[in-house]
């Protein structure tokens, strides 16, 4: 009786644990199933490198290059914001902040992470975009720059907290060893601590990128929505996530447009998948490098 119960419990927990795998496989299968028909109509190359996205014209055009470039532009722009602020905050928290500053800053950074994305989007629409429009005398304030700034702020807490973890994983004994041969604080930081935490910091940056490239609501609200290859940071853009969110409601189920949107989702999934694998790979190397094993 007891043995049966134990076995039952074991099966139950195994099933629960593997459910994530089932979800993942399910998502991937559905993505492929719904995405693949579009490639019967448009070649993969034409899909990825086509310069016009007119899914509802007659005849429709399914080139997602403008969407991919929009995503990359805003993500890179976000990095310009979130890497200096995030890594800088992590260094400050780890190296300079006293207990009091830490007690204030750490929760503040965490709260920044918990603000719903719609609030960021709203902030971008109502405050940042008019401000940029006035400052740079733009025809429209909803553009790649606005999106990058908002996404950068959104990704900052991710970068800051993971980079700070990476710094705190660096054993204190490295610092002592460095000081003990006559190094100063700056040398210790730049020659020992940052290199030792380097791959951890890279992981933080990659995860920040994943956060930025996958963000939808904010992007939908502030990017401007023009599916045109961007030529300047002031151009309105339509990143991949925004295209899917905006158009899915209007695309008839089973239509080419519908399949094309799934194909965009698939590409997006592959991009974030690669980012995450890279982050995992680098952080594993990081732990090995510090002798933390596994």
């Amino acid at each position, binding site marked *: 009786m007891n043995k049966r119960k134990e076995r039952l419990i074991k099966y139950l927990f195994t099933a629960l644990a593997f459910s994530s795998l089932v979800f993942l496989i399910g998502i991937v299968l559905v993505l492929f199933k719904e995405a693949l028909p579009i490639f019967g109509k448009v070649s993969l190359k034409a899909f990825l490198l086509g310069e016009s996205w007119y899914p509802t014209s007659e005849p429709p055009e399914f080139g997602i290059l403008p969407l991919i470039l929009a995503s990359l532009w805003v993500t890179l722009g976000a990095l310009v914001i979130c890497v200096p602020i995030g890594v800088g905050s992590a260094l400050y928290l780890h190296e300079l902040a006293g207990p009091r500053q830490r007690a204030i800053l750490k929760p503040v950074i965490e709260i920044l992470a918990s603000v719903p994305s719609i609030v960021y989007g709203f902030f971008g629409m109502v405050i940042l975009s008019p401000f940029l429009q006035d400052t740079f005398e733009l025809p429209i304030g909803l553009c790649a720059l606005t999106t990058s700034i908002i996404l950068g702020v959104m990704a900052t807490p991710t970068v800051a907290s993971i980079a700070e973890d990476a710094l705190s994983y660096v054993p204190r*004994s*490295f610092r002592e060893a460095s000081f003990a041969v*006559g190094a100063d604080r700056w040398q210790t930081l730049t020659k020992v601590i940052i290199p030792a935490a380097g791959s951890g910091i890279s992981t933080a940056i990659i995860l920040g990128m994943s956060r930025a490239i996958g963000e939808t609501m904010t992007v939908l609200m502030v990017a401007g929505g023009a599916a045109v290859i961007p030529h300047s940071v002031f151009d309105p853009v339509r990143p991949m996530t925004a295209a899917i969110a905006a158009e899915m409601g209007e695309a008839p189920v089973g239509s080419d447009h519908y399949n094309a949107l799934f194909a965009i989702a698939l590409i997006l999934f592959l991009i974030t998948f690669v980012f995450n694998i890279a982050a995992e790979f680098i952080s594993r190397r990081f732990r090995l490098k510090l002798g933390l094993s596994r």
Partner: protein
Amino acid sequence: MHNVDYEKQPGMENFHPSLVKGPVGINMNYMGEADVFGPEAKISARKVNFYYGAKRALNNINISFSPRRVTAIIGPSGCGKSTFIRLINRMHELVPGTRFEGEILIDGLDILSPACDAAELRKRVGMVFQKPNPFPKTVFENVAYGLEVNGVTDKHLIEEKVVDSLKKAALWGEIKDRLKDSALGLSGGQQQRLCIARCLAVSPEVILFDEPCASLDPISTAKIEELILTLKKEYTIVIVTHNMQQAARVSDNTAFFLMGDLIETGRTDRIFKAPRDKRTEDYITGRFG
């Protein structure tokens, strides 16, 4: 042991107790008994008190260390022995909320005074830690690190120093083909000798060992001890150890700390054979600690 024939001690041919110079009247033990083995003091601590916050960790420590001798500091956990040697290269500054009183003189200069630059001091007073702590860099980079941060840019000089330091640390033979490998791939004992080489590379005068063998196996320990005996020809060595056999094997002089007090100092053989203080005797005979 009171009437030691100093002339017969190796290296002591020209030494006579009356030649002992030092801070007069400060270290009664050192001065009064002429009991410590070696010429005039390289390092003298005077009336040193140390506090972690409100907690007092060292009480009025007066002690001298002879040049080119090994002094062991023994005592039970928490007696202040590590705290004390960390003052000698000002590593205590890395811990916030600490405070000290008194002075520690090296060659007559107070190294605890704000006028003394901590980084300069640490070049003169190297330290080897309890757990081997090589950087996650190559063997070569580890040893070269101290030179690099001290502004040495001459590649030949660095290379020469690295090789020289590895030889002095008795590691060269085992490792000369692995200079470009990660230091973390070495065994624990090799890592500790690498840390010694890293410390030797900046040409210190004093080396502080803070329980250097605490995490090592007996064979690696024996190698480190052998190395310490070689190094004392050139360097003033202070070693904190939990292990009384180790103190007996490697040191010329021994100091016994207990609960923040310096109980007794003297020549190692005398301390172990004829301790004067009951507490020293109890500790070395294993009645506590």
